[in-house]
């Protein structure tokens, strides 16, 4: 049963009072990136933002470095500190950390504050535990001094230091009131951290701190903010990236009651109004009243034709490609293969569809030298950096209130924060605070999609029937250079977000070659839950299934044989097969299996499907999933994230499709971009396998299982392979006719 922590609602206002509060504060920069990589503490007049502060009343305030979009990091990161600190969780307050990269930056993203990649827990785990242990050690040392006993005789219970010999106790609050802070942080060696068997909080399922606010309407998202004197803004955005407004006829928009101004922006036309509804009406009135320059790469692009071209290039081995990864000598060995199998796969563009349309509130000062921003963002770094650049001011003149996100899924982390800057632009222009809201249509038309991709795969078997060679060519629209040119440069020009998941980690295949055919259609792209892994694992895992059939081997046995050297992988695959009763015959239904090593997390899934042969409609009845992501900080939350990942993967597998005609997005809203509803989701059976391995991610690892599992179940049922996601009824019927 969840423990209830009531400390979230009060916590946001604590940020102001905390600075200068009595008690202890601690700040440690992670990963040695700053000179200040030492413990510092001050009683009064704290100027350095702390991770942890302890007030004389025992309240422990912990900064949340990760932003919250439903994945639970706002709870799990502070929980990791609290574990080693041995804090009484009921006395912990959690506060969003300010945008100071050197203190709070994510070690997994080169120190920028960025919540993505399902890597918050995995990257912060050891640094935060170490810091929690350091703070505890300082408390112990102070208690030893106060009690006049050797520190070795002291132990801690939640928020209390205990001297067992004399029966004396000091609460953390008592110690905070008298503590002396050492100039240098005490050294904590890895073996001084708790053993998993000693955990009081990790693995025990505390209630996520913000949950109570999410059942009574009090949770605050960016879109809920109002500030005094605020006006409302909308932006009619360029239909094609790179276009700018040409002629603007603003007469109709300006005639709408409540519209105060129409503003030419670099990327669109802004409307400012006294009410939200007038701002929306003003945007609507501009629809036929703006012409656009024919600039930008995507003009004329047609995604169906483009997809055919991608696929032809991927298959044409003479067409230039760049080696993405190689092992052994795949080019040579494939020539010698006794048996060669080839296949093609395709994935369409897909849209994030976070439920909260993009929005932000910005208030630029009259002099233009400071700005206050209220927004939900996956990156406090980019959310402050881009506005600072725009206004030509230092980053510390940007005050960010990072709020809960109504979904992120990768949409709210791009370097240019397109969902924040137009509020800044409009506020600067009119000299008042502005709340800019995107309509759902804006959110779709100006989405940043999971890219279009085409995959050509070849596999070679030796005369004994062993799979020896693997060759995968991916032609896909770029992501990283578009969504984050800074990271692209820093990463040596490699587009990992597109190519992730092309590896076949875990499988024993001696010769492997993966090639990238870099494509830039001009269409807007971003990481999207599962990033490249979703497309690439559809290709590799469905192909793995085809290879098993070609060899006349059961797909489960085929994988287990190849996974022999990878016990953790074997375990999830064996377990999910047991859960689904793999060998059992089913009337009118069949099973399909997929396995993935996703950033170290081991996941395996099985889909059970049936087919309506008249309509082409596939039904997924059951989905079984086993996941081993190492130490489970919040086990039930990992299960919840896995359930959510399955539903998300189901959408991209069955119905979700963005198409581009003449450079523009064809879909508009949920009537032509169809998301899974309750009556479309299968029974989900998720089993968490807890191990003592370093914790790895859970937020998206199961999403890429669905497409290959459903494709393989369909193949088992019909003998026909589905090769193009989503598996719409039209495509299913077409595949059956061939």
């Amino acid at each position, binding site marked *: 049963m969840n423990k209830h922590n009531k400390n979230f609602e009060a916590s946001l206002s604590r940020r102001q009072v905390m600075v200068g509060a009595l008690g202890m504060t601690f700040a440690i920069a992670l990963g040695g990136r700053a000179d200040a990589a030492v413990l510092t503490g001050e009683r009064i007049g704290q100027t350095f933002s702390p991770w942890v502060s302890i007030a004389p009343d025992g309240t422990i305030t912990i900064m949340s470095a990760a932003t919250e979009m439903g994945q639970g990091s706002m709870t799990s990161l502070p929980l990791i500190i609290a574990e080693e600190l041995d804090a009484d969780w009921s006395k912990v307050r959690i506060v969003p950390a300010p945008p100071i990269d050197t203190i709070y930056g994510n070690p997994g993203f080169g120190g920028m504050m960025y919540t993505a990649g399902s890597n918050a827990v995995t990257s912060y785990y050891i640094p935060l535990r170490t810091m929690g242990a350091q703070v505890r050690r300082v408390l112990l040392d102070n208690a030893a001094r106060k009690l006049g006993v050797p520190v070795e005789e002291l132990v801690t219970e939640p928020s209390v230091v205990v001297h067992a010999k004399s029966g004396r106790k000091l609460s953390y609050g008592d110690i905070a009131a008298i503590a002396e802070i050492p100039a240098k942080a005490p050294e904590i060696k890895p073996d001084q951290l708790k053993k998993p068997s000693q955990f009081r909080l990790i693995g025990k399922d505390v209630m996520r701190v913000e949950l109570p606010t999410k059942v009574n309407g009090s949770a605050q998202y960016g879109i809920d903010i109002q500030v005094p004197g605020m006006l409302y803004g909308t932006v009619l955005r360029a239909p094609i990236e790179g276009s700018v407004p040409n002629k603007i006829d603003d007469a109709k928009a300006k005639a709408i009651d409540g519209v105060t101004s129409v503003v030419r922006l670099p990327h669109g036309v802004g409307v400012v109004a006294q009410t939200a509804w007038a701002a929306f009406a003003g945007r609507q009135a501009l629809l036929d009243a703006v012409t656009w320059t024919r600039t930008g790469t995507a003009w004329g692009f047609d995604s169906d034709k483009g997809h055919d071209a991608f696929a032809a290039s991927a298959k044409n081995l003479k067409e230039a490609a760049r080696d993405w990864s190689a092992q052994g000598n795949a080019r040579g060995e494939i020539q010698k293969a006794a048996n060669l199998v080839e296949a093609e796969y395709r994935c369409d563009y897909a849209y994030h569809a976070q439920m*909260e349309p993009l929005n932000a509130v910005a208030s630029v000062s009259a002099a233009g030298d400071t700005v206050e921003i209220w927004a939900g963002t996956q990156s406090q770094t980019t959310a402050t950096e881009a506005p600072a650049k725009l206004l030509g001011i230092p980053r510390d003149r940007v005050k960010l209130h990072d709020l809960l996100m109504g979904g992120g899924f990768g949409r709210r982390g791009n370097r240019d924060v397109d969902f924040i800057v137009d509020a800044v632009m409009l506020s600067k222009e009119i000299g008042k605070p502005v709340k800019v809201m995107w309509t759902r249509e804006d959110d779709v038309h100006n989405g940043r999609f999971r890219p279009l991709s085409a995959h050509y795969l070849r596999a070679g078997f030796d005369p004994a029937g062993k799979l020896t060679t693997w060759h995968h060519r991916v032609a896909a629209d770029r992501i990283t250079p578009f969504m984050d040119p800074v990271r692209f440069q820093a990463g040596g020009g490699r587009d990992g977000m597109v190519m992730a998941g092309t590896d076949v980690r875990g499988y024993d295949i001696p010769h492997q070659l993966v090639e990238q055919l870099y494509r830039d259609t001009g269409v807007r792209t971003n990481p999207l839950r599962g990033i490249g892994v979703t497309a690439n694992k559809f290709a590799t895992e469905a192909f793995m299934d085809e290879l098993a059939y070609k060899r006349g081997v059961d797909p489960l046995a085929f994988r287990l044989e190849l996974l022999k050297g990878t016990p953790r992988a074997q375990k999830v695959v064996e377990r999910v097969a047991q859960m689904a009763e793999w060998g059992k015959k089913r009337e009118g239904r069949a099973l399909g299996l997929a396995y993935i090593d996703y950033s170290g997390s081991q996941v395996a899934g099985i889909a059970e499907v049936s087919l309506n042969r008249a309509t082409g409609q596939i039904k997924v009845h059951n989905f079984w999933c086993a996941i081993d992501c190492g130490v489970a900080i919040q086990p039930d939350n990992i299960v919840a994230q896995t359930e959510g990942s399955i539903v998300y993967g189901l959408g991209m597998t069955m119905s979700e499709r963005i198409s581009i005609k003449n450079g523009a997005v064809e879909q508009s809203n949920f009537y032509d971009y169809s998301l899974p509803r309750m009556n479309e989701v299968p029974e989900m059976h998720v089993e968490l396998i807890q191990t003592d391995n370093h914790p790895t991610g859970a937020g998206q690892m199961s999403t890429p299982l669905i497409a290959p599992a459903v494709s393989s179940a369909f193949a088992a049922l019909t003998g026909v392979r589905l090769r193009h996601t989503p598996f719409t009824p039209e495509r299913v019927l077409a595949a059956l006719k061939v």
Partner: protein
Amino acid sequence: MATNFIVNGKPAKTDAPSATPLLWVIREDLKLTGTKFGCGTGLCGACMVHIDGKRAFSCQTQVSEVAGKSITTIEGLSPDSSHKLQKAWLAESVPQCGYCQSGQIMSAADLLKNNPKPTREQIVQHMSTNICRCGTYKRIVRAVERASKEA
């Protein structure tokens, strides 16, 4: 012309043009921001409220249509988060991002009001009006079932 109505048991008034969707009056004028904007087309259910005791998409309801009517939003479902659905939602740890959950709870409350002991199929059918992009459907079913078992 002003429109008068009742929100969460209290009289409310707006001067918004009569075609303004109720959603925006609730959120921006009355500052009851628990009711959410999701699609503006009555397809996602994030904006679900009760009008005279029945669920309704507030984004599809013009303010002129609610003159004299009584509206309940998530903030008015209970004074202290004590509605059995709200308790069940926490017991099952339903919300992830939470953005759709006000609408989900308002839809579920409408179901239980008319059908206190729904079958699983009835729950699924009724709740399929509401989209949850985080994919919390399984837990929503469990929470509705839990609440329906409470006296």
